[in-house]
């Protein structure tokens, strides 16, 4: 009982603080907490009784890598263009993808700790793969600054303040390798960003993306199910409510 009350007051706080932060940022696309709140509005098709669970999950999120909100919002807005909100359901921001990527950059993924990082470094042929001496954390940090400076150069505005089509123009330039970067190509960063966005949309929610398992819901993927032995021979398509491995304890 006590726990419930606590949840309630947390939720109230969240709503207020969300709106407040939103006003402060004033970007064309809302990120982080705000996006999450928007998703929670009464019109959202994903609003279910598990909504409370969602609240809890969002509250426990935080930045572990980016130190300032401006950089975090640039990342957030870029991921949203890759995986936009539409009539099928939430986009990258509502799914928590920016938190997923930020948190991953703070760990093994960001420091490439399971990868061969000895020199000498050479750029090599595309068939030889990743040859940068930079870690993913360094690449993302540099690329976020580049997204911002490209927005300033092209549109005299911050990346988070430009129109969606203008963001797309910049991201396309990255994809086509037209943006000079140091120690890595912009095309490589783009592929990294695209992959990380999909990972954040569809990884188990224990990684702070795929909020409320809505990424899975859109795709009809049931997440962690113990077994399909009882339905594997069925000729009918099976619609199954998804489960996270976080539900196991």
């Amino acid at each position, binding site marked *: 009982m006590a726990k419930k009350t606590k949840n309630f007051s947390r939720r109230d706080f969240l709503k207020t603080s969300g709106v407040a932060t939103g006003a402060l940022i004033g970007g064309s696309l809302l990120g982080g907490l705000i996006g999450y709140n928007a998703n929670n509005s009464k019109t959202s098709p994903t609003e279910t009784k598990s909504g409370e669970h969602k609240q809890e999950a969002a509250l426990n999120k935080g930045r572990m890598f980016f130190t300032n909100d401006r950089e975090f919002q640039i990342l957030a807005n870029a991921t949203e*263009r*890759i*995986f*936009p909100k*539409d009539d*099928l359901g939430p986009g990258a921001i509502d799914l928590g993808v920016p938190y997923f990527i930020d948190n991953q950059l703070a760990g*093994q*993924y960001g420091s*490439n*700790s*399971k*990868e*061969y*990082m*000895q020199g*000498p470094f*050479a750029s*090599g*042929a*595309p*068939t*030889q*793969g*990743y*040859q940068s001496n930079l870690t993913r954390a360094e690449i993302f940090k540099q690329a976020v600054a580049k997204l911002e400076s490209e927005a300033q150069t092209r549109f005299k505005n911050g990346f988070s303040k430009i129109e969606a089509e203008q963001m*797309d123009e910049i*991201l396309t330039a990255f*994809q086509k390798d037209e943006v000079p970067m140091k120690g890595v190509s912009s095309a490589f960063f783009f592929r990294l960003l*695209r992959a990380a*966005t*999909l*990972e954040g*949309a*569809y*990884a*188990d929610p224990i*990684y702070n993306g795929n909020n409320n398992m809505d*990424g*899975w819901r*859109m*795709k*009809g*993927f*049931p*997440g*962690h*199910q*113990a*077994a*399909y*032995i009882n*339905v*594997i*021979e*069925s*000729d009918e*398509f*099976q619609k199954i409510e998804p489960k996270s*491995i976080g539900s*196991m304890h």
Partner: protein
Amino acid sequence: MVKTLPKVDVVTVGVGWTGGIIAAECTKAGLKVVGLERGQERGTEDFSMVHDEYRYAIRYELMQNLSKETITFRNNRKMPALPMRQMGSFLLGEGLGGSGTHWNGQTWRFLPYDFQIKTMTEKKYGPNKLSNDYILQDWGLTYDQLEPYFDKFEKTAGISGENNNPHWGERSSDYPTPPMKKTHILKKFESAATKLGYHPFMMPSANLSEPYTNPDGAQINACQYCGFCERFGCEYGAKTSPEVTVVPTARKTGKFDVRFHANVVEVLKSGNKVTGVRYVDTLTGEEFIQPAEVVVLTSYVFNNTKLLMVSKIGEQYNPDTGKGTLGRNYCYQILPGATGFFDDQYNTFMGAGALGMAIDDFNGDSFDHSNLDFIHGGNISITQTGSRPIASNVALPDTPTWGAEFKKQSIHNFTRTLSVGAQGASISHKENYLSLDGTYKDAYGVPLLQLTYNFTKQDIALHKFISEKSGEIMKEMGAKTVVNRGAIDQYDIVPYQTTHNTGGTVMSLTPEEGVVNNYLQHWDAENLFVVGAGNFAHNGGYNPTGTVGALAYRAAEGVIKYSKTSGSLV
């Protein structure tokens, strides 16, 4: 500094399928075996939260830590070789069970044609079917000679299958367990293939259809079709792997000691024998010498080759002169196929690693190649291994790879696309080989292995032909749009293709043709055995491990024989 340990009968380098089989057989025969495994201990209890695509399938939790060791790669001799810094094209194993922990379990016997490929190809098509840039050789052992060992491996693993494929070799007994369940998706393939006049059958599987106790007393459970199989360990103990079969069998004898975090850096040789191995404890940095009567290399294709090269055992292949056999015959596989787009939804996310149906009507020499510019072919199959959302984002060709349209299509297609594909055979070529890298080193100061590899004309022709056949099946299955896989050109080490690397330590009838004899005993060092897909003279049209397992049983017999008689076994 280096501490020398008490001598043992047998030491294996690595404890995956090959190391585990050697350990089980040798300990049962009374020999004392030490297994040096550079990864960690693991087993069924570690897989209770394994249904995590991101950790296991995307970030490769169970696989080799490349920060310690990788290989270098180039497409041809003119290019500088650069390190494979991230895993991609193939996924190397590490830890107890090796890749056998996270394999799919599709378990095949190579065809009679594979073992006598030179003789049979020349007999039917003459000596010039392929140019002499290709290296075609018989394996030094026929299918019939290897049959008892296939039988043994399948009984250890409890393979689930049905013997109704007209194209494979004679079997001395039926599969130990019945085939897996036939799903809606599989039935669609079956009826389409039958209509086209082919001979579909259930894929032989190490995800067992029912609980099974193997001849060594090891218990394997029934597969639950959980959909997290390939790249994952099995939380049910239902996927046959070394940790649930041969490793406990060896441990039960009290004669098997596995040492973890033990990275072997050298095989020690004196005269025409080896004396043991040198290894580093990767936790403490301490170095040890483990003396042994017999050394068995069971560290997969790449490290078996590398350890022989750095220990200067055998003559390295020289692509200029064609001399030397060590590192020669590196082969891979090529993956033709077709994707079909449907309106109906299918349970694509359910499945098991080896749940599938296949045809061999275009594998080996089961079809006439007289008017074709390639030999061999591939096993064409449909598998239902469990699609996962991070990896599976299918869109029609020419769709942007991101944004609204991509999102829409990739979500829509997740349960509405099916693929038919083949494992295309790969024939040795004189420019495809393994050597030692002159620049890059592993964490212990040992040179990395260097891979020089590219697709050949034979590969490109085979890929095109089989992709077309796959597309025809897909069309017959009723797909509204069929997209054949595009033509291959340069081999690219970035996208995942297959972990079916072969060659480098080829078996042969004569010392001139290979590195080991048909007991996998080294031609130049009688108490050294080298076991794995490295022994393949070319790569066939199936997954390799059924054949690797059979060869490991053959080698174990050789080690036991050798420990009684000494000398060459052939």
